[in-house]
């Protein structure tokens, strides 16, 4: 807003007029060098190795991989009906989980950011953060204990006559769905909260003063303005969910198994690194693909909605 802020980053001019003082002029990007080297060594190269393995094959029962003959056959195997079904199942669980998280988190974040008195916000935010700070695995085990057929939840439901017979939810896809929604809920609440908190209450007032109902205010003001938070939340939930390994292992049993476990099995018992690598690459592509598609759809819908519903108000400030 001031000229100072608007000026782009420059090296301080004072240094140029210093007489002959030996100044160590380090190249600008030096600070980024350590992390770049680190990532190159421990992320890019290993991942490149994985991609390299995915073009190989398994030469014999007792050898893990070989790359003397390159082919795309492992990708064909990974996309075979048996394994492809797991990709589809994982995608289903991930998409359903993300949507459910959004549905549960939005009213919660709205309540926290808009309806709650400011003095309570810190406390409630801390309460949301505490489960997030608890160990992921331990939280999931908490559900495993609760949902066992001989557990207290099952016994309570039976006593209340809500189910006939012990609870048979554990070790099914439903349990995994519940588990992932639970585990990633804070990751959806937090960005939504931040976005909604930045919402100016005056805008909501203005909307009401102009005769808008609660629904109108919600759909035309609140939701569009919280869009960046929604996008952040969707990404933060969907991406790790697709690769989740722990929740299906703890809650899924045989069914509800997801791609993460499939990839792990290739490395941990089947010793078929080529196939495992191909599956891993396909998983990454699936994540990117879905994010890109959804991102594109949201962007288009956003533009369309804005075009349809926006008003150009006369503005006194420079845009």
């Amino acid at each position, binding site marked *: *807003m*001031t000229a100072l802020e608007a000026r782009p980053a420059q090296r301080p001019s004072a240094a140029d007029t210093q007489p002959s003082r030996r100044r160590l002029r380090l190249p600008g990007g030096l600070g980024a060098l350590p992390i770049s080297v680190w990532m190159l060594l421990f992320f890019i190269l290993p991942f490149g190795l994985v991609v390299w393995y995915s073009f190989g094959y398994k030469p014999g029962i007792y050898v*893990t991989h070989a790359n003397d003959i390159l082919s795309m056959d492992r990708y064909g195997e990974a996309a075979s009906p048996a394994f492809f079904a797991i990709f589809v199942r994982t995608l289903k669980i991930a998409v359903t989980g993300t949507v459910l998280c959004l549905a549960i988190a939005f009213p919660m974040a709205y309540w926290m950011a808009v309806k709650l008195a400011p003095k309570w916000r810190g406390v409630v935010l801390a309460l949301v953060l505490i489960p997030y700070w608890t160990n992921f695995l331990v939280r999931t085990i908490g559900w495993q204990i609760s949902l066992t057929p001989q557990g207290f939840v099952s016994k309570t439901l039976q006593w209340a006559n809500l189910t006939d017979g012990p609870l048979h939810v554990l*070790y099914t896809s439903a349990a995994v769905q519940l588990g992932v929604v639970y585990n990633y809920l804070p990751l959806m609440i937090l960005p939504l909260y931040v976005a909604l908190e930045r919402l100016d209450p005056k805008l909501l007032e203005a909307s009401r003063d102009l005769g808008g109902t609660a629904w109108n205010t919600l759909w035309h003001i609140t939701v569009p303005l919280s869009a960046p938070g929604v996008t952040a939340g969707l990404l933060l939930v969907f991406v790790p969910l697709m690769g989740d390994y722990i929740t299906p292992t703890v809650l899924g*049993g*045989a069914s509800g198994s997801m791609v993460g476990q*499939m990839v792990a099995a290739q490395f941990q*018992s*089947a*010793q078929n690194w080529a196939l495992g690598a191909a599956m891993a690459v396909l998983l990454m592509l699936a994540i990117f693909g879905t994010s890109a598609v959804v991102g594109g759809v949201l962007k288009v819908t956003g533009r369309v909605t804005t075009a349809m519903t926006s008003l150009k108000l006369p503005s006194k400030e420079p845009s």
Partner: protein
Amino acid sequence: MNQPQHIRVLVPEALKNSLTRRTFLGGTAALGAAAFLAACSKPSGGGGSSSDGLNIYTWGEYDDPAVLTDFTSAKGPKITLDSYGSNPEMIAKLSAAKGTTGYDICVPTHSSVQQMATGGLLTELDLAKLPNMKNLTAKVVNTPFDPGNKYSVCKDWGSTGYVYDTTVIKRELTSWVDFLDAAQKEASGSFSLLEDQSEVAYTYFWANGIDENTTDPGHIAAYRSFILDKIAPHVQAFESSTNASISSSARTLIHCWNGDARLGILANAEPDRYKWVWPSEGANLWQDNWAIVKGAPHEDAAYEFINYVLDPAVSLKELLYIGYNTGIEGIEEAARKADIKRPDLVFITDDIMKKLVYSQMNSADGTIIGIYDELKAAAGK
């Protein structure tokens, strides 16, 4: 960002900041000191090359905890246990890490010993350091799968069968045919298979009168279509360490090994609820062995431990806990004298022994493992 904030920042912040910066640095230092102290207070903590430790990579719940603590008090090294559910899992871990796993002892089943030896995963044993080997019966030493005990020493041997919940399954099950049948009917959605690729295959082969070590592609294809079409939708879990499920009555039908069944049944609040079955057609016979991993950081401790458990008194303690025959000469009489519970699950009678067959590693293994992966992918859909 509004105007007043900038001005506020400029003025006395410089003073306030240096104080709080010091607090921040102090806080980090305190945290670092705490972690450092924590590390120092545990002499064997942190580093991978502690001189007084022993890392054992074994099956789940496969040793009496009392025996392990007794070893530590008698000889010194503290023992850490890590577990796996199947031989391929153990082999995969050891071969992927090429000697850097940090494990000293592993427990391969007899059928894997040669493969592991050829793959350079096991150290050749110096039998002079294992004088207690003389206590083992002739049957379990110098075996066809490891002549001269170059790489392995018998830990125990046993067989495979299953348990079922008699309160849910009212009829009597006696064979593998019954097992596969109940899996599709009363126990659907509530039964588990061992995490072992070959064991799962053997249930089909035995039920259909096929040699468990078959390499006939026709048999294997038949197994594949059966297991994927008929059994996969009913599986609830793949589990090798089954005693917890048995003791908590978690499932109706559980594919398991005899010692685990005994542990589970004895720990169950209703000991008669689960019935163990020695299947009538016969079953797999296996021997688990102690072996020393190549690149073991504590080889001497490993030899000491193996020698320690081959002592008849210690071996008896192990047997009374894990419920598997440890192969020591005269162990059966000693166990019965010690009033062992459920000896019928530990000591296999001759008429059952006649029907048991040692598993072998053969050319069909790769296919069997592949079918198992497909089973896991298709399970419980």
